[in-house]
């Protein structure tokens, strides 16, 4: 089942003005349910723009883009998306649990349902005992986990993540990667994940979409899928596997040109 279908999509900012920027050119991409797409490319090539377009936050300039067979705006209104960004973006005056409750509040869940789900999410990201902590009392990694719990809280069909682990140290990052995969498998989410780390892209994804410098175009797509559908695969094994290194090399070559 197609979750995202993009054809011949272009995005130009400030058309006709002297600060005109061609961000994306002629993008074609289809994402099916359950896929984990890693989006990688040089800084400024339009990765964030692509997520914003898919999320219906900014209008497309030309081409076609549909999400679950709907326009992005419609999909957004029907709350098909969960989003997470590089900085956690928590509301500082709310506790961890209340931050996770925010989207549920907006969607009209009852208080009891909200609390129940928020607690489940906190367990999922292993922050059960921090329900009443404010963001200022949590480390960067913990805040990011709260943000991910928030993004997942309403079972969105599609997760859009923009360098969510970019600010984390290596150890926390790997831990978060494992958790994210685990959560995604449990919830059967489809994910589009922007990253600037090649190993991260390879480790997480089923496919890595490599983009060229601005104007952003898809220069190649690398099939990774190291788990081959086996959700119980041992993550440490995969990280040390020869296939992992081969795929890293493959993506690197695609990124820098051979």
């Amino acid at each position: 089942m197609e979750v995202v279908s993009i054809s011949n999509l272009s995005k130009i900012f400030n058309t006709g003005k002297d600060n005109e920027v061609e961000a994306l050119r002629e993008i074609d991409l289809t994402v099916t349910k359950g896929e984990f797409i890693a989006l990688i490319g040089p800084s400024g090539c339009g990765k964030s723009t692509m997520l914003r377009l898919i999320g219906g936050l900014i209008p497309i300039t030309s081409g076609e883009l549909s999400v679950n067979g709907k326009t992005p705006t419609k999909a957004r209104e029907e709350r098909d998306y969960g989003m997470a960004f590089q900085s956690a973006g928590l509301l500082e005056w709310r506790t961890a649990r209340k931050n996770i409750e925010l989207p549920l509040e907006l969607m009209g869940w009852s208080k009891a349902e909200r609390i129940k789900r928020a607690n489940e999410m906190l367990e999922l990201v292993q922050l059960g005992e921090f329900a009443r902590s404010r963001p200022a009392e949590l480390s960067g990694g913990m805040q990011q986990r709260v943000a991910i719990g928030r993004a997942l809280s309403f079972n969105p069909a599609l997760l859009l993540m923009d360098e969510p682990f970019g600010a984390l140290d290596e150890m926390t990052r790997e831990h978060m990667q494992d958790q994210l995969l685990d959560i995604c498998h449990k919830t059967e989410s489809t994910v589009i994940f922007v990253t600037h780390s090649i190993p991260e892209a390879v480790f997480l994804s089923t496919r890595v979409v490599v983009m060229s410098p601005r104007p952003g175009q898809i220069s190649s797509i690398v099939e990774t899928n190291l788990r081959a559908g086996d959700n119980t695969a041992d993550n440490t094994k995969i990280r040390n596997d020869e296939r992992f290194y081969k795929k890293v090399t493959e993506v690197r070559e695609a990124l820098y040109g051979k």
Partner: protein
Amino acid sequence: MGNELTRFSTWLSTALKWLAPLIFGVLMVTVWEVLLLVINPENFLLPRPSEIFSELIDDLSKISDDRSKIWAATKTTGFIMITGLFWGIVWGVATALLVTLSRAANETLTPIAVAINAIPIIAVAPLFNNWLGLTSPRSNQMVVMMLVFFPIFITTARGLTQVDSQQIELMNSYAASKWKILRSVRIPNALPFFFTALKLVAPLSIIAAIVVEYFGGSQNSLGALITASASFADYSKAWSVVVAGSIMGMGLYFVALTAEKITLARDRSPRLLLIAWQKITGRTTGA
């Protein structure tokens, strides 16, 4: 043991926080008293604190048989201050909300507000008196209101608009309406800004209320009492009125501070203010 010790040290630091300015204040007053007593006991332009306070106590002791001038004046001026403050806050916050929600409102109202702010409002108080009646409280309320309006408006508007753009984007991704964004993100973000402005304008409003009374308004007011006492060379009376005004200003500042503490202590929901109000007034109905 350790627990008790930490409790004692927090108690001590709280006590010190209050004690230090108190001791300093008492010290200042004592120095003032002693210095005048030593240098110039006959001085009457600047009375000693003891004279001022005995004047104040003397006047206030007549409250029961309704002959206290200072009490009557405090009520008059207090009323003008509170109502002026209230309407200044209401209009300031309302304008800030309007300007935040509508670009058109922002482009028309903000320049007008800035222009109004450039008028030296106290200086035009005599004109207001001519328009609205020399003895009417209207013109004085108007001056206080206009003085309060601008800091509240500008600061609150800043708090409502200076929101992390990512947070707005996130709210948009949940298809949150303008109102929901206002309620969940903008207003909580603006509350600390609002209270900063409130703590600024609360003492300002008592200054404004008294100063405009030098030009007109009721004759039973703090401002009128100061000018009258000064022209009769009754300086300890004049100063005791100033002290009464100061106490009122401090009281107002404290109310603002407490409101801030209550609201910001928890989820930055103004709902807590309402709950506090219900507790105070003993009413239990409502939200």
